[in-house]
């Protein structure tokens, strides 16, 4: 019997993360000062990031189960950066809601490992494995504020709907397997290309892809599969929301892009279906966000809208659109994480949310935080020269190039609607009289400041300085080789 040759170097970033998870759990039993655990987590994230960037094995590895291509690299970096920032964000505030900071760090690392598996997976089995690792970790993280009824409710909701979504995923995968005889994306792509009409169960293929799309829709919070999002994002501890709102999207979109590229036939109906999903997702997200009084809920609806913008890039069906979608993901990672970081900085220690009332007049009490929040709000609106503007520009121009000018117009109208609620936050902070007592806002520690500064600088700099990493994005999309 011959044993398979396994290139463990290819999954080195994952090995580091999982080993660190176990180490954190063990250290949690002996270490008194729980902050050490967060630093251990940060160290692991840094090591994993270094492994991602330095060890670049030839793809594919593990019998074609994972790919370490440019797209996987790109998504891994975005996810790891989000994890690092989320760990920093949680450093001073985990004690507000839990007595188990060790488990918190461990689960965050495990979720990250799952996301990277998903982003790099080139086989349905591995995609599902990654999806389950990340989902199970996130279900627990969402309910981590044990004494908060909202957090518990959020965890249960997320768990039930997430399990449901997993069912869709599996059924879709099974049908695609029935149609093409393989779970491997490369094999599936080859099978469709060579004899698509003569495949025995060819009619099952579109049904399978459709079901898969529903599964991704749940994970990405696309309308009409978004119902859980506001409750979960509001109920979860703010640092968890910050993390899951960006990193999950990166992982799931990277995986969706891979799957789409594999089953791609450039069919107009499929693109129109994606475009339709994008339109309802953008519009409903933005309209619902208009009337929220809770900032976390508002950002939850806004995150739905942003998923719609990214989907616009995919619906464009050309390289430009895919590049735009990837650019948007990294842009969104920084600006959204920054916005949630500011919310956490403003929120009271005994609370898990901030109302619009609480930030009224923030500029007089905390000019620094108000200024940073303004930067993030402007970026989310899509003001030049911030990173959000270029994201929208690339995505919409991709749509125009793909012959979907109407979709770009809907997107621009949506951005205008969104400007109302983003800018309202700024207006309240600067022009409203102070209502909240200054003492309510806890002192902002260095770790949170670091997160805020990194995200703010990135929000500015990545818009102005795009050359090197746009090249990486282009290469990622070229390697996908859309037909």
């Amino acid at each position, binding site marked *: 019997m011959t*044993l398979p040759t396994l290139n463990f170097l290819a999954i080195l970033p994952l090995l580091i993360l999982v080993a660190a998870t*176990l180490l954190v*759990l*063990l250290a*949690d039993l002996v270490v008194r000062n729980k902050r050490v655990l967060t630093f251990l987590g940060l160290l692991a994230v840094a090591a994993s990031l270094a492994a991602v960037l330095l060890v670049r094995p030839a793809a594919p590895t593990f019998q074609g189960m994972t790919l370490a291509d440019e797209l996987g690299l790109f998504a891994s970096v975005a996810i790891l950066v989000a994890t690092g920032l989320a760990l920093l964000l949680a450093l001073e505030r985990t004690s507000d809601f839990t007595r188990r900071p060790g488990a918190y760090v461990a689960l965050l690392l495990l979720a990250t490992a799952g996301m990277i598996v998903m982003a790099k997976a080139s086989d349905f089995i591995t995609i599902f494995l990654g999806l389950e690792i990340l989902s199970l970790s996130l279900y627990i993280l969402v309910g981590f504020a044990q004494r908060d009824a909202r957090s518990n409710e959020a965890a249960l909701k997320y768990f039930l709907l997430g399990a449901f979504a997993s069912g869709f995923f599996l059924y879709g995968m099974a049908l695609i397997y029935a149609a093409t005889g393989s779970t491997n994306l490369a094999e599936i792509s080859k099978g469709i290309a060579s004899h698509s009409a003569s495949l*025995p169960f060819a009619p099952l293929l579109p049904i399978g892809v459709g079901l898969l799309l529903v599964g991704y829709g749940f994970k990405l919070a696309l309308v009409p599969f978004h119902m859980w999002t506001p409750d979960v994002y509001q109920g979860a501890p703010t640092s968890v929301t910050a993390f899951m709102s960006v990193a999950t999207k990166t992982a799931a979109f990277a995986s969706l892009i891979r799957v789409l590229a594999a089953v791609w036939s450039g069919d107009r109906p499929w693109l129109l279906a994606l475009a339709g999903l994008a339109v309802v997702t953008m519009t409903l997200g933005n309209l619902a966000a208009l009337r929220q009084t809770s900032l976390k809920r508002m950002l939850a609806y806004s995150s739905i809208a942003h998923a719609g913008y990214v989907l616009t890039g995919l619906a464009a069906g050309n390289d430009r659109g895919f590049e735009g979608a990837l650019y948007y993901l990294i842009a969104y990672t920084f600006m959204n994480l920054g916005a949630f970081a500011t919310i956490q900085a403003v929120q009271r220690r005994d609370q898990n949310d901030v109302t619009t009332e609480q930030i009224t007049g923030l500029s007089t009490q905390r000019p620094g935080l108000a200024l940073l929040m303004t930067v993030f709000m402007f970026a989310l609106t899509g003001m030049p020269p911030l990173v959000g503007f270029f994201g929208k520009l690339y995505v919409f121009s991709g749509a125009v190039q793909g012959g979907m000018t109407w979709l770009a117009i809907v997107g621009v109208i949506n951005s205008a609607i969104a400007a109302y609620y983003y800018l309202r936050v700024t207006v309240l902070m600067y022009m409203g009289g102070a209502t909240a007592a200054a003492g309510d806002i806890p002192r902002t520690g260095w770790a949170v400041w670091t997160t805020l500064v990194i995200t703010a600088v990135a929000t500015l700099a990545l818009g102005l300085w795009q050359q090197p990493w746009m090249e990486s994005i282009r290469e990622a999309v070229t390697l996908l080789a859309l037909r």
Partner: protein
Amino acid sequence: MPEGYLPILVMVIIASAFAVIALGVSALLGPRRHNPAKDEPYESGILPFGDARRRFPIQFYVVAVLFILFDVEIILMYPWAMMARRLGLFGLIQMGIFVAILLVGFVYAWKNDAFKWQ
């Protein structure tokens, strides 16, 4: 219709036929003698009480999860034990890593008093 799927179809037909015939024949031919003890949902000798939907201690949940943990461990060990000779050192190391990972979870649960019934 590919021939590769035919055995599965045959299997499905035989399996369902077996179930239908076995249940159907015993329902048609079997004698029926009802009595109150026999008609209880669980004919176990213990009198049923209350509603099935009631609250029970959350600790059962912890016990159930821990049971799954070790159950899965054993299930994976069986096929490995069958193949241990052929998998050789490679398999032994893999199993060692697997057990070590579970051991960390075990120690963590232990130290967090998961095994104490409070």
